[in-house]
């Protein structure tokens, strides 16, 4: 069974397993035991299957080692070195130690997979529900579930995540905490360090120079945060330190950037003057020489530089990838840009400004040619004004008719002066009871009330359960229907499998639910699961048809 490619890390003779003596091998993938005088491995466990190892306590008669697998199976090895207990223990310890170093490596792999699945389940409640409904009830197996039903989730995991750029505020986000005695504590994470290196190559250079040869990492960062470089725009501390050089490098870099220019003509990085917005709108503030220059200029410069760095940091990444493609595109494009004539740039700028100040939807169409508009001539406008009913039951009365009508009504009004009719004529008790019956729920005028409130009658938990049923059933059915038309034997196989799963679902989930409904709220038991059953029956029918055709063939 052992293949030649496997490397044997340890070989221990005189190991007894289930009353047979043999040799224990520890290989790079698995642990194996071979009976004496045989050449087949009778016991073989992959390290990834092993959960733990156990050893017998000191001082016991038998020196043993047990490996317990994830599925609960365990194998016990008895060390029977003839040189006595000492040697037996030594043998055992060698195995134990090696296993100890080997197991974690494999375990992590398994754990990660499990962890990943766990994470997926917990972050997707719908998937979790599906898992509960399908796997835990053994309608489909776990492997099937992960392979088929959760594939889109797992796939989504595997796609390369988008490269995340550097936040412009990453430095500001490092919040110092006071440690209580006049000092500040900065908490920096690996991410932050990464960001700092990305944006400030000069710092990275320094870091490589100094750490860990000249100082520890912590010292380096302490120095960094203490340095004038970090606090550059604040006005104190003009001391020399390790980062002064960085400032110079940055300045040079900056100059180069300014020379290169920025493609966007709307951005002016050469200007370091503090300007309020209303300047240029007719107000001219006379410059106060020297007073506000230094601090704010330094600040603006710093901001600009920081922004440039941040932008570059993400750009570098893309450049790198394109470099990897073997194209020296960045340099060539730079050359092209340099060689671009001045006029072209001017045009570019114009275009860009044009783009910013025009709004498409505000433009008046310039097509003067189509000026002759067609006048809309409507006839029979009154038809718009008619209601959605077959009109025309209006009768006009002749004066004669009208007079008769009016006289009849007036006659009636005359009686009002005399006395009012007693209240029992107004509504006689019988009519009142009749109206009461009609208007009480269930009465003639209350029709439609029942159906409408059906939705309200369903308790929330039942509703949730129905939703879960739909979710699981639809998942199964979608896989079932996807197999049609079955062109390959695999698909055919899958149809059979899915059909079985659906049947299991029917028996294990839907039936008990229906029984429960009948017990708890009989009036609507069938309404709720009617559609589910329809779905099921459709799939059964399809399956039967398919089988019939197959049998005929």
């Amino acid at each position, binding site marked *: 069974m052992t293949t030649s490619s496997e490397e044997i890390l340890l070989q221990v003779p005189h190991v007894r397993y289930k009353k047979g003596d043999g040799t224990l091998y520890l290989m790079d993938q698995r642990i194996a035991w071979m009976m004496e005088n045989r050449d087949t491995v009778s016991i073989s466990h992959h390290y990834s299957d092993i959960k733990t190892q156990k050893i017998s306590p000191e001082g016991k008669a038998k020196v043993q080692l047990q490996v317990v697998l994830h599925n609960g199976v365990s194998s016990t090895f008895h060390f029977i070195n003839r040189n006595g207990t000492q040697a037996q223990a030594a043998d055992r310890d060698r195995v134990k130690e090696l296993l100890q170093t080997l197991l974690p490596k494999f375990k992590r792999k398994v754990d990660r997979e499990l962890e990943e699945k766990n994470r997926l389940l917990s972050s997707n409640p719908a998937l979790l529900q599906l898992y509960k409904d399908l796997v835990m009830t053994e309608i489909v197996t776990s492997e099937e579930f992960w392979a088929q039903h959760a594939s889109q989730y797992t796939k989504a995991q595997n796609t390369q995540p988008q490269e995340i750029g550097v936040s412009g505020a990453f430095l500001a986000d490092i919040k110092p905490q006071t440690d209580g005695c006049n000092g500040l504590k900065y908490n920096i994470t690996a991410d932050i360090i990464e960001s700092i290196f990305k944006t400030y190559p000069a710092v990275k250079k320094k870091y490589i120079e100094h750490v860990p040869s000249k100082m520890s990492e912590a010292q380096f960062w302490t120095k960094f945060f203490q340095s004038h470089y970090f606090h550059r725009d604040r006005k104190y501390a003009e001391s020399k330190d390790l980062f002064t050089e960085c400032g110079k490098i940055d300045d040079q870099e900056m100059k180069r950037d300014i020379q290169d220019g920025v493609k966007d003509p709307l951005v002016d990085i050469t200007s370091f003057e503090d300007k309020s917005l209303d300047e240029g709108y007719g107000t001219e503030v006379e410059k106060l020489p020297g007073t506000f220059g230094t601090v704010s200029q330094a600040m603006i410069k710093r901001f600009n530089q920081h922004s440039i760095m941040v932008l570059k940091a993400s750009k570098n990444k893309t450049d790198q990838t394109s470099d990897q493609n073997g194209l020296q595109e960045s340099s060539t494009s730079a050359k092209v840009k340099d060689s671009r004539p001045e006029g072209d740039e001017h045009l570019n700028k114009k275009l860009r400004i044009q783009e910013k100040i025009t709004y498409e939807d505000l433009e008046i169409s310039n097509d003067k040619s189509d000026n002759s508009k067609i006048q809309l001539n409507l006839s029979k406008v009154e038809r718009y004004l008619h209601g959605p009913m077959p009109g025309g039951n209006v009768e006009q009365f002749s004066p004669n008719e009208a007079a008769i009508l009016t006289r009849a009504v007036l006659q009636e009004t005359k009686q009002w002066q005399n006395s009012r009719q*007693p*209240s029992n004529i107004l509504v006689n*008790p019988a009519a*009142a009871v009749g109206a*009461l019956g009609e208007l009480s729920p269930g009465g003639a005028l209350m029709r439609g009330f029942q159906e409408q409130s059906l939705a309200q009658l369903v308790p929330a938990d039942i509703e949730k359960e129905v939703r879960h049923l739909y979710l699981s059933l639809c998942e199964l059915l979608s896989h079932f229907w996807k197999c049609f038309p079955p062109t390959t034997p695999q698909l055919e196989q899958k149809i059979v499998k899915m059909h079985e799963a659906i049947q299991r679902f029917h028996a294990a989930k839907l039936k008990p639910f229906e029984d429960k409904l009948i017990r708890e709220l009989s009036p609507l038991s069938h309404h709720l699961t009617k559609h589910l059953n329809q779905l099921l029956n459709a799939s059964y029918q399809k399956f039967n048809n398919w089988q019939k055709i197959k049998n005929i063939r």
Partner: protein
Amino acid sequence: MAQNDTKSNHINNSARLQPANLECKNLHDYLKTRSPAVLERLYNHPTICLAVYRELPELARQYVIRILFVEQPVPQAVIASWGHQKYAKEHSHVCNVLSELSVWQEASIRGGLAGWLLSPTFKRNLKIALLGGGKPWTMSSALDPDNKARDVAFLDAYSAERWECVLHYMVGSQQQEGISADAVRILLHAGLMKRDEEDGSPVITRQGFQFLLLDRQAQVWHFILQYLDTVEQRGLDLVECLTFLFQLSFSTLGKDYSTEGMSAGLLIFLQHLREFGLVYQRKRKAGRFYPTRLALNITCLQDKGAIVLEEDTPKGYIIVETNYRIYAYTDSNLQVALIGLFTELLYRFPNVVVGVLTRDSVRQALKGGITADQIIGYLTQHAHTQMLTNETKSPLPLTVIDQIKLWELERNRLVYSEGVLYSQFLSQADFNVLKEYAQTSGYLIWCNKEKRTMVVSKAGHDDVKKFWKRYSKGN
């Protein structure tokens, strides 16, 4: 087993530190305390039926009107089905109210169903009020037109003056005259004022202050209720007076009514009402009287917030700012005195008083037994029209409302409840059993497992004691 309960000590809690507050009953509460016989007599009058109907909860009004024309009992289940299931709680409350007031009675229907049947008297008289029939009310005999008819403005001024007279008397402002010994007697009876221990002159009590902070309608209603309590001592008939009072409350403002055909007792009652400003009469023997705004809709206590649509209602005068300042545009000493109850007055001008709500000033008022709700209610009710213009929000700044409530809560950190102490249990099991029982029945106030001690509310004491006896016997 030792008898624990014999050793139980009564925690003496009779010295309740919470003073009795002004209890303001509405019509419902008042009628609930009358006997069914009195109610039956009262329901013989359409006016009272009308008043009672209006005071019913909304849902009850619908129920009553729906079965008003039905002569046979209606199954209870049918009536229950008229309301949505969601409001079942309200439905049962409403049924309770209707039974309490004997508006309807239980009646069985063929087939053993339980049904409700409107009280025949109530039904008949409500129908009369609504649709007509029956005898005219006592005060509506025909009258010749009054040659000195009084308009609404005059009546308002008159009633305000009369009523304020009473209020002024209570706060002891200068206007001492114009209030009769009778009114003083009622004030004393109601506990709004009490005799000073030294010179026997009446002084205002804490309830009196609370009374002052009520809105006018509530004041009148409370006062009249107190008056009605004394009515029988005066040899007047309660039902007759109540009927007349409600007739008055359903009369029209600015119209004159005749005293013709009124009994001697009623005439005396009318004179009393005249004194408080509920009716206007030029002369004692004028033969006609005018009801004033005070008498109208006398029972409408529930809807304090509702503002009547009429334009001529008295306007509010208080502006409250978010900085706790209060500007009161008034020159009335009474109103100034009332505001002074809970604010620190800063300035006084001919037409405006400026004050500020401070913690001290509000706490002073709270100590005097005035509640935060009363202060807020007073400020809201007299809020200046400018404060009311933004529709949705409350007229007062929310910060001020919250702060006043917080100041009140500051004082209520202790809650007193009467109870019985159970201690010296022999075993933890006994303790647990009894504790469990008391807890599930909702009597448990406090317990300590380690010391095996628990306090049971006084109401539950008997029950728990019985349970304990049963339990210990069983063991």
